[in-house]
Structure formats: C-alpha cells, structure tokens
C-alpha cells in the first residue's frame, strides 16, 4: 500500500480522500477538470427508488464561512443511475460509494437490491440524516433503534460494505453509532449538515423556500471535528469524516483525530479541483514528514 492508501472497513482506498454526497453530482460533471479516478472515491448524490424533483427555489444561500442548502434530495433515481451513470464510472475505474435514501426500511432495501445487480459499486452509504425532507430523513438517524433496523436490513441485502451517515442532531449520537455498529455497519460517516436558517432583513422573508436548510462548509468544521472525535472513541469500526474539509490541512485535522478517510463537500463548489488538491497536499505532507497516512490516523497529541 502506498503512503496514501487506507482501508475502510474492508474496502481499500488508494487515498483517504472521497467526495461528499450531493456536492459532486454523479462524478461525471468533472470531465473538463480532472480524472475523478485519482480520488480515493466518490459518494454519489443521494439516490432514491424513484426520481425526485427536489424542493422549490430558492434552494441555497450563503452564511458566514458556510452555506445553507435545501435541495430536497433531487436525484435521477437508482434506475437511471445504474443505466446512465454507473457504467461510465465503472469503465473509468472510479471507486463509487452509492449514497442512498428512502422513507422506509423497505425502501432502503429495495434500492440496495437494485444496486446489488450492478458491478462497480464499492460500498453503500445510508443517508439516515437528511434535514431537508419531510419524511424519512433524519428520524432514522436520531433513534438508535430505527438506525439499527435500517442498518441490519441493508446489511442482509448486500455483500458490500455498508456505511451509515450520522446525523449531528441525534441527542445521543454515541448510542446511535453503537447501534449501527452492532447492526453490522462496516463504517460510520459523519457528519451530515445541521439544520440552519437565514432571514433577509431587507425583505423580511426567509431566504430559503423550504425555510430551513442544511448548514455546511468551513464554519461547520469545528463541530464536525468534535463529533468525529467523539465517534472514534464510541465505536470500533472506522469513521469517515465530513464537514468543512477543503484543504490538506483540514483533512489532517480529522485524520489526526482518528478518521480513517475524509470526504470533501462544499469545498468542491468553491473549486472543482478541491478534492484533487487535498490528495496532492496530503502526498506532499507525508513525503515531507516521512509518514504514511495510516500512521497519522488517530495520532493527535494532547497539550
């Protein structure tokens, strides 16, 4: 394994840098920019059983060092993903994590089964933590029992690694995490966005049509780092970190805190090459310091 290679719950990644679901499309929008197969992997936009149109606009707005989104999980549906997108990704050798979402346990299983029929999916990431839909988003991620049910059901439906994406809004996140671990999750990913809101004092109206939206970006990073740190000591399975990561320095914070890999999210909006630059920055850091990424994981010191 090279200095950058890591292993996440049985899945070997050429480097620890993935892209976060919903911030990298289906990975096919980057042809003009770079070869996404250079990344550790990509998490697809959240896939549902049927295509979804998403929420009415306005869907995004900026906040200090962050943003709010209320996309509402617009996506092409798992069928079109399998037919239109996956074959191209597979042909290019991209490591694909399918992020999936449903409003029932059966829905999660049905999507997983459809994906099981296709080659080229390397893991399934369960979004049990979307703040922007009325049914079946976040409640799964808040309740240890529900989270475990979804995890166990998907676990039975696939031979592939199952990752569960944590909601930062669970009251007792460690309990949810352990429930998922016990139910057979191979890794946890954290965090999804936290619900936020913005009002325009000029027009006195809410900025997003959905009123509230998911808060992401650099502003979120300190909270995400603390949650990842908490999770790392709560479970034995690997944790994949997400939240405001846009540079190699940011990625190092999370690796040192114990994350086995990271996902670049909002930063890709600022610069489509952000994830690639994180890989390059980590390579330079490891070279300069004479360490491998694996040696860095969990290596933070207390003062």
């Amino acid at each position, binding site marked *: 394994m090279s200095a950058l290679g890591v292993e996440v719950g049985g899945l070997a990644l050429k480097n620890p840098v993935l892209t976060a679901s919903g911030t990298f499309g289906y990975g096919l929008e980057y042809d003009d920019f770079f070869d996404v197969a250079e990344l550790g992997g990509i998490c697809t936009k959240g896939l549902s059983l049927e295509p979804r149109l998403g929420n009415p606009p306005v869907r995004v707005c*900026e906040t200090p060092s962050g943003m709010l989104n209320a996309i509402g999980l617009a996506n092409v549906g798992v069928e079109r993903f399998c037919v239109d997108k996956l074959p191209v990704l597979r042909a290019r050798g991209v490591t694909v994590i399918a992020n999936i979402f449903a409003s029932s346990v059966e829905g999660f299983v049905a999507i997983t089964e459809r994906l099981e029929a296709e080659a080229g999916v390397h893991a399934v990431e369960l979004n049990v933590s979307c703040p922007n839909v009325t049914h079946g988003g976040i409640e799964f991620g808040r309740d240890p029992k529900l989270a475990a049910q979804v995890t166990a059901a998907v676990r039975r439906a696939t031979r592939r690694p199952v990752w569960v994406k944590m909601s930062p809004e669970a009251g007792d996140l460690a309990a949810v995490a352990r429930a998922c671990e016990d139910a057979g999750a191979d890794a946890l990913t954290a965090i999804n966005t936290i619900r936020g809101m913005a009002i325009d004092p000029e027009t006195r109206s809410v900025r997003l049509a959905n009123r509230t939206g998911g808060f992401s970006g650099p502003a979120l990073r300190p909270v995400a780092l603390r949650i990842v740190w908490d999770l790392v000591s709560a479970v034995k399975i690997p944790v994949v970190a997400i939240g405001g990561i846009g540079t190699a320095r940011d990625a190092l914070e999370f690796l040192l805190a114990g994350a086995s890999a990271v996902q670049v999210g909002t930063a*890709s909006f600022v610069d489509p090459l952000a994830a690639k630059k994180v890989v390059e920055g980590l390579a330079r850091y490891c070279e300069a310091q004479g360490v491998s990424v694996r040696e860095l994981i969990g290596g933070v010191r207390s003062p």
Partner: protein
Amino acid sequence: MSSPPPKPAPPPRRAFTAPLLRRESIGESYHVLSFDLPKGLIAQAGQFVMVHGQEWGQAPLLPRPMSLLTSGTAPSLLIKVVGEGTRRLARANPGERFQLLGPLGRGWRPLSPGKRALLVAGGVGVAPLLYLARELVAQGRRPVVVYGGRSAQDLPLDDELARVAELHVTTEDGSRGRRGRVLVALEELLTSDVEVYTCGPERMMAAVAERCREAGVPCEVSLETPMACGYGVCLGCAFKTTEGGYAYACVEGPCVTAERVDFTQHAAVGKAQGVAP
C-alpha cells in the same frame, strides 16, 4: 413561431487563476473588471464565469456567478455592488488574484436567418447583451436595444451599447430617454421579424416574455438564480419549468427560451438588478 437554430456546443470549462488587470468604475455601483489571462478564455455570448477572490479566504465563501462582458485574453465582467462579494470585487486592485471558472452554462441561441435581434436590457443585465450585440455587429447584423434603468445612473455602458446598436433608453424617473419602463419602448419595436433577447430583473424579464408570447415573437431570457457551484453538481440553481419540473440554470441556462420558464413559480429571483418591469 418557427423553431430557432440550435445552440452550438459550449467550449470546454477550465479553472483559471488570473490577476486583475484593470478596474474601471462607473459611479459607485458599477465596475468593469478585466483579468490578465494570456491563455485566453474562449466563450460564447451569454455564458458566465464563477469568480472568487483568492484573498477572500472563507468569507465570502462561494464564488459569484457573473456574465462575461468580453472573453479572450482579457476577459471582463460588469459588476453591480449589491452585497459583500460584489463589494469586494468593486474594491479589488490590479494585481489581486482571482479564480475564474468558465465559461459556464449555455449562451444565447443564434439569431434565426432573416430575423432582426431586439435586445432588452435592465441595468447590470446589459453585460451578456452587450457581448451579444458586439457579436451580431461582427456578423453584420446590428441589433436594436431597449435599455431601461431606474434613473440615468443605472445605465452602465450605455455609450458602448450606442456604438453597436440602435439604442432606445427608458428611465423610471425620466432622467434619461423615455420615462417609464422598458415595456413602453418595446411596444412599437415588437414587429413580427424580430427575435428578443432579454436580461435584467426577473419581473422585467417575465413582463417582456409575456409580451413576446402575446406578439408571437421568440424570446430568450438569461436567468439569475442563486448558484453555489455553477457547473451542475449542487442543484441549487433550480428554476421551475413550464413542463412541470425543475431545470438547472447553470447547465441548461442561464440563457433559455422564455417558454420554458414558469415565471409565476420562479422564486429564484435575482434581486441584484436595479430595474423593475
């Protein structure tokens, strides 16, 4: 209404970093910024870039979508100050470095053979239309332009426009040209041999589109939805279509045929413009 010629494929997108070459301020609110880009940015009229200051750090976080005023080795933008990002652009000094991502989206559809172009601009919406006007002139097809603003101060680059087009100006306060909104000037120009291209405040474009529909004249609008990425991955730039679903302004637009846009539903208002219909 015969269907207009299809749009040519857009040129490849690139992430450039470039220093500011020049900033020319037109009053306090409007600024033309040009960048030093020896490699050159190849674009079509109506396309845009996402621009972000390398000095901005993490606030303003996101790049700002801006229509190209010109392309080439010194691509330029017309900026209207409405918030923090545009304020920073307006104060930038030559040498300051920017990231330019582009060209993005789909530009204006080509003018049909035998037709005349009627351009309807509101305030800062003039940028992609001036680009278009210059291109049409280069093809020997000098356009007619209606240019409206709240007052004489809200008509940046009107002199440039007058150089390449037959220019009709309206202002709401009557401080320049005809008093009133662009519709008053549009009426007599909306003949059956024209095709309309419009960019400006959403309510203006909606009103123009509605008049064109009534007159049976094709109308192309340039949408200014809020955008996070500009290249099709965030799904933030949705606009409601008359077909029922949503389309994404950064990849299917910003220039789209007015028939596709459900203006009654379209809340993704660009508030940045200075002119109401």
